[in-house]
């Protein structure tokens, strides 16, 4: 730190790690897109799971989302952050060892996810499905990343932190806070745990996490990348640096509040819903400020689109950012959410962001980076051009088909006849109507994948034709910005990075505390006369199967106080009904109907038949068969441990019930089996998972003490 500023130094950037992350991005992208395509085909044509439990939709969908967000998105931002930060800070990354641990640790986490999710190890919380040992590994690797990044800032030669670095800092701090708070759980066994939160607490914490995974994993880091790579590609500075500062602070401050817009019309207290909606609406301003700033950076450089076609990816990416951040606040308006929530509109919205913004920004960045990292030029601009147009067509097919499907189904759900009955009382009618659109969506996904395959070939050829000699080149750097400080102020300004990080932390802490703190005392919101009975041991076993199979991916457990919904499913859900739900299973999508009042609606045999072949009770159902539930045994013994953990997190179980949980469960299982056998089901099911699942399904909505 004592080097004089006029000293000219020769240093080497660590581009090897950037290369590694770039290639990992490409590999995991292929996996994420492929999983997505298979999942899309399964919705259009249910036997596409090949009768394999590991790739059945409920397990495949978490695999797809985790691969897309954390494997593809994660590696892309690490590549971009490590590449741009070294250059903006004029220093090599702090530690080659930490960089390597970060890289290999992250890939190992992805592999662990790719193994455990298909096996059904899941928390049952969206985008946070990974079980506790992997959660700990993620926290550890994130700390390695943070240490490496902040120490790099500490040893920088450029005093002033460019705005892209601000976005990176906010990302690192916030993701750590989100991940840790949302993952507080108590282990039952090596790969099973229960969150300490329940019901509305768990819902609020989960969507505070879930929405900000979008905000701080898929938005802020990519905005940082935008503020670096768009000016680089256009060879002109960002349109307005002032605007970028307002953009940063407003976005970081506002985003953290927006989570409850995922819970509009649920039993979450009204004030939290209102906060979520209002702050989401306010997000319109900074988001569009950022988009305009990105696009206007290209003002006067539009001719470059002809000679440097990779800029097209940035232009389209930033435009999709604008579209998605326009649509997001729109969907957060309660009356719009009433129509759009639980439908495919949300899926369309998410993919305009994921494919358009994250996908295209990453492709643009990789097309920019690879030729420079390998010191060559891109193999084919023509292929790039084709990738762009085919990919764009794919996204449009995807988006338009899903918005149409969402609006169609949403309108059908709420249609009411003059006599006050539902126009489409059978849920399946509303599903059959949109299946053709599922095919179009799959076509859109396939086109996106075709475009990406062209990119893989293009990048492969580029690297193959690169010069064999890849010895690192020295960069000549000088220290800058440090003098002015010693002249004008004192040394403590050296710690600007730290001061800044604390400010950014405070900005996200305000919203987090104001929203989450009041629900920590959940009893404030619960009426004593509506207290629920906890689940029986067998129902807990069934609930864990429900979570394992990812039922929440397609079925909600939350009836909104909306006329059509009450007509279809029954009285609106209450806070008390999910007060012992660790984790909550409200869901966010209704590919199938809501299940919160499913209990006692049908006989046990109906459920057995339905799980073996849904089409034998609901013609044209698109739900897959679950034959393995009648083959696998329930683990009764572990129920003692499960109930004891449940008791620790606040479910009022008697000691006797905990100690003899397995005996109680077996007794209940025999009762259900006897009823099934009496009605014609095969014999010998009493130990099977299907019995536990039926017990749970029959308990839904039946736990209230009220009449």
């Amino acid at each position: 730190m004592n080097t004089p500023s006029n000293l000219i130094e020769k240093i080497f950037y660590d581009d090897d790690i950037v290369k590694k992350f770039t290639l990992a991005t490409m590999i995991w992208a292929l996996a994420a897109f492929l999983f997505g395509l298979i999942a899309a085909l399964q919705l259009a044509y249910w036997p596409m799971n090949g009768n394999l439990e590991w790739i059945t939709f409920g397990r495949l969908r978490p695999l797809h989302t985790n691969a897309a967000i954390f494997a593809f998105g994660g590696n892309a931002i690490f590549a971009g952050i490590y590449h741009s930060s070294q250059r903006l800070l004029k220093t090599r990354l702090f530690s080659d060892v930490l960089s390597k641990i970060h890289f290999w640790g992250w890939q190992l986490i992805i592999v662990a996810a790719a193994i455990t999710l298909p096996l059904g190890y899941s928390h049952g919380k969206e985008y946070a499905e990974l079980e506790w040992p992997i959660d700990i590994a993620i926290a550890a690797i994130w700390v390695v990343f943070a240490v490496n990044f902040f120490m790099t800032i500490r040893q920088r030669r450029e005093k002033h932190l460019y705005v892209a670095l601000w976005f990176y800092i906010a990302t690192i701090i916030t993701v750590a806070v989100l991940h840790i708070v949302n993952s507080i759980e108590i282990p039952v066994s090596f790969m099973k745990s229960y969150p300490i939160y329940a019901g509305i607490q768990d819902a609020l914490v989960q969507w505070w996490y879930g929405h900000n995974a979008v905000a701080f994993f898929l938005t802020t880091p990519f905005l940082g990348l935008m503020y670096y790579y768009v000016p680089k590609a256009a060879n002109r500075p960002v349109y307005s640096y002032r605007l970028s500062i307002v953009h940063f602070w407003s976005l970081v401050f506002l985003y953290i509040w927006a989570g409850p817009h995922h819970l509009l019309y649920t039993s979450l207290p009204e004030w939290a819903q209102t906060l979520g909606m209002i702050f989401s609406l306010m997000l319109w301003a900074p988001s569009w400020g950022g988009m305009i700033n990105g696009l206007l950076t290209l003002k006067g450089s539009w001719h470059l689109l002809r000679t440097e076609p990779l800029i097209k990816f940035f232009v389209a990416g930033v435009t999709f950012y604008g579209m998605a951040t326009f649509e997001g606040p729109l969907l957060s308006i309660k009356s719009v959410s009433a129509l759009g929530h639980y439908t495919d509109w949300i899926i369309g919205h998410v993919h305009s962001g994921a494919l358009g913004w994250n996908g295209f920004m990453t492709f643009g960045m990789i097309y920019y980076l690879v030729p420079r990292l390998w010191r060559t030029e891109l193999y084919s601009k023509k292929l790039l051009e084709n990738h762009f147009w085919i990919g764009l067509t794919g996204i449009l097919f995807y988006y338009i088909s899903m918005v149409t499907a969402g609006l169609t189904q949403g309108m059908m759900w709420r249609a009411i006849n003059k006599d006050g009955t539902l126009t489409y009382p059978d849920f399946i009618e509303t599903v059959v109507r949109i299946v053709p659109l599922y095919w179009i969506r799959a076509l859109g996904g396939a086109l996106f994948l075709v475009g990406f395959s062209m990119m893989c070939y293009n990048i492969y050829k580029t690297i193959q034709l690169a010069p064999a000699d890849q010895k690192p080149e020295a960069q000549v750097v000088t220290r800058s910005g440090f003098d002015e400080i010693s002249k004008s102020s004192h040394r403590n300004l050296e710690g600007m990075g730290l001061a800044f990080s604390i400010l950014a932390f405070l900005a996200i802490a305000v919203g987090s505390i104001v929203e989450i703190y009041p629900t920590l005392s959940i009893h404030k919101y619960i009426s004593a006369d509506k207290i629920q009975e906890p689940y029986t041991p067998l129902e807990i076993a069934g609930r864990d199967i429900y979570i394992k199979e990812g039922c929440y991916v397609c079925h909600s457990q939350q009836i909104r106080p909306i006329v059509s919904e009450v007509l279809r499913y029954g009285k609106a859900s209450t806070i008390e009904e999910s007060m012992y739900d660790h984790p909550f299973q409200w869901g966010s999508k209704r590919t199938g109907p809501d299940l919160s009042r499913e209990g006692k609606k049908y006989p046990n045999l109906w459920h057995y038949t339905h799980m073996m072949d849904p089409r034998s009770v609901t013609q044209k159902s698109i739900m897959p068969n679950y034959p393995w539930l009648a083959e696998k045994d329930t683990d009764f013994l572990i129920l003692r441990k499960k109930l004891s953990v449940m008791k620790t997190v606040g479910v009022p179980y008697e000691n006797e019930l905990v100690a003899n949980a397995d005996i109680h469960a077996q007794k209940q299982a025999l009762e259900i089996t006897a009823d099934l056998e009496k009605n014609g089901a095969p014999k010998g099911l009493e130990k099977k998972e299907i019995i536990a699942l039926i017990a749970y399904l029959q308990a839904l909505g039946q736990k209230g003490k009220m009449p």
Partner: protein
Amino acid sequence: MKQEGLSFFTDTYLTILGLVIFFLFFIGVVVWVNRKNVRDYYNSMQSMPLNDGELSYERK
């Protein structure tokens, strides 16, 4: 009906608190970026990504 709706609207002070905190914060940021004598500073900041001498290569 309106009253019924509003009866669910509890803890309004938290909503108002959230809004006030943000509004003050936002005004603060806007004033801060427009403070005097920062034009040169911002000019140098915004050209930062372009000063790292990274070249484009041609295939040999």
